Structure formats: C-alpha cells, structure tokens
C-alpha cells in the first residue's frame, strides 16, 4: 500500500500519453490528407504539422511532470 502513489502516478502519466498519441495521430493524419490533396504545399503543411505536434506533446509532458511530482514529493 505504501507504493500505491507510484503506481497511480505511472497510470496518470500513461493516460496523458494516450491523449498525446491520439492528438498527434490526428495531426499526422490530417497532414497526410492535405499533402495528398495538394502536393505542392507539402513544405508548409509539414512545418505546421511539426509545430502542432510539438505543442500537443508539450501538454502531454505537463501530465508527465504532474505524475513526477506525485512520485517525488510525497510527504512521509
């Protein structure tokens, strides 16, 4: 029972990662559709995709940081 907080923190981080994976997957998918429609604009689409992916990953990492806080700052 004393390690419950570690397990819950890891679970929370995993949930955050699920959200990130779905988000980035959707971004990638729309980028692919857009490039298929208009191959000339692929440079701009790629840049926008990378930026959006980095922002979504940033949010997922907030979740990871919250999980780390849950593990490391447990009062005895």
């Amino acid at each position, binding site marked *: 029972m004393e390690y419950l907080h570690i397990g819950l923190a890891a679970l929370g981080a995993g949930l955050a990662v699920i959200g990130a994976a779905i988000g980035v997957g959707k971004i990638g998918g729309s980028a692919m559709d857009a490039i298929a429609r208009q191959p000339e604009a692929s440079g701009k689409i790629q*840049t926008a995709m*990378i*930026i959006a992916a*980095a*922002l979504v*990953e*940033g949010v997922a*990492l*907030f979740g*990871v*940081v919250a999980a780390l806080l849950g593990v490391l700052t447990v009062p*005895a």
Partner: protein
Amino acid sequence: MIAQKSLKIIVTFALALLPVFSFASKEDSLVEAEKEFNATDMILHHIGDAHGWHFYGEGENSFTLPLPVILYTDNGLVTFMSSEFHHDTEGHHVVEKNGMSFVNLHEKIYQLEEGAHEVEFDKEHHPLNAERPIDLSITKNVAAMFITVIIMLIIFSRLASFHKKNKHAPKGFNNLLETFVLFVRDEIAKPQIGEKKYMKFMPFLLTVFFFIWITNLIGLLPGAANVTGNIAVTVSLGLFTLVLIVINGNKDFWKHTLWMPGIPTFVKPILTIVEVVGLIVKPVALMIRLFANITAGHIIILSLIGLIFILESAGVAGISVPFALFISVLELLVAFLQAFIFTMLSALFIGMAVQEHEHH
C-alpha cells in the same frame, strides 16, 4: 558457395549474438563491496546538478573535476573548491572555513549552526541543525552554460567579422550559421511580430534560439550537464519572455488584457482575471514544455542503458543500445524542435503584445 558479401553479414551477426550467452557474475574478486544497483539514484544523479563535474567512477576513486563553491553567508563571502568535500554527498564530511562549518547533503550545501560538528537528521532525512546559505557556486550547470556562451561568442563574432570585411555570401560554417539566422528572421520573427517591429526583438530571439539549441545538443554528449532540464534555467528563460511581453506591451494590448472593450460590463472583471492568468501561464507553459521534453529524453536514454545493469546481463545491451541509439537520434530532432518552438512561441506572444489593432 556462399557469396563474399553474405558471408560477411552472416559472420557479423553470429559474432553480435555472442553476448547473449554472457551473464555478470556476482562473486567477482576485483570488486570489494558490491552495492545493489539503484536505477533511480543513477538517473537522478545524471540529470541533476552537482558541485563537481563527475565523469566516471564511484565514491573515493571517481574522476571528478572540482568546481568552485561560492557561498554568501552572514559573515561574508566564502569560497573553496568542491574537492574539499572528498566526494561526500551524504552530509558526513564537514568543511571548516573562517569558523563556519559546511556539509554537502545531496549536492546542496548546508551551513551548520554555531557549535555543531555534525548534521542531525529528522525522520524525513532533513537536516535539523543546518541551513542553506545563499549559494552562488559555479556548479556543473553553470559551467556548462559558460561553455555554451563561449561557443556562441566565438561562432557569432566570426560571422559578424566576416560580414564586416566582405560583401559576398559566406562559405562553409559561416554559411550554415547564416542559414539558421535567416531562418529565425524569416520564419519566426517576421511572420509573428510583423515587418515594422521585428528588428528590435531579433537579438533576443536569436540568443534564445541558439542558446537552447546548443545547450540541448551538448547535453546529449556523455558526461555532459543537463542544463535545459534544470527547472531554474527554464524558469529564467520563461521570465525573459514574460518581461519582454510586459515591457513592450502597447496601450491596445493592456486595454484588451485588463479591460476588454466590446463586452458587457459585468463580464469584464471575470475576463480580466482570465486574461491576467493567461498572461502568466503562457511563459510558464513555455518553461515546463522545454524542461519536461529535455529531461524526459535524458531519463529515457538513461533508463534504457540502466536496464543492462538492472537485469545484470550483458546480452541486454544488444537490445538496449540500438533503442538508446534510436532515442538519441530522436533527441537530436527534439533539441532543435524545442529551441524552435520556444523561440516561435516567444515571438508569437511578443507579436501579440506589440500588435497595432485597427480600431473598430
């Protein structure tokens, strides 16, 4: 007969599979006291700050570069080299200077109270009779930042002096550097801040971009310091952006933040609170994004290599090292991407602050 090339491939694979049959032996006469391998401690030691630059080895016979410890205590400035602690980070070894006693507890320096000769701990292993003085030491991260600063000064002064002397396009490394400088100007500064005002913020954007990128890259080398993975460093970077936003916000920006026009009056105070919180949260998000990305990357690489020691088999290296290689290549991309995202979002926030609104 098997062809020459296929034979080479088969022999290489056969040799590469040999480590799978090896196992680390515990009864090794070369090692005196085999401590249980603690992965958490190893990882935290590698991503944390330290008062000496540790390369390899453990405890007394480790190869560590000592760095200066500079403390501002009630009795003035105290300086000494971190080698005086003799590799002790558990608070045992006491260093006496000017009648004051100092210990190193988990890479934090504590000053013992008057008359105390050793640290007393409470239940949670916090010191009871010691306090931290103002610590201005050159720690590992500070030294690494100085290295980045020296690199940046060298490469940019070379580029600037080239342009002072010549009118034609530069070649070689100068050309590469100029590509990135123009990238920051044309893809980040001009679109986000606008043609009229971008020049004023170019020095800040260029400095932040190259500082973060170079520091991230250096942090990937073995034995290097984890600078941008230190929350204090990213807090400072986020603070710079916040200060720039607040100083350069024009009247329209503040009017829209604090007392948004075009909204019924009873909603305005709520919106003010939301906007002010948003103003602070945006640089905080920048800071956490950079910190978490870089630290997470380092932890993954360290965990993969640490797996070899947790499972105590050299054969695991056949899986760990290629994975760690793959993650390291990804980290190269992340190093650039995080620098780019930080700079772009800073430019975006500054652009929003200095934007001229057309009046309805």
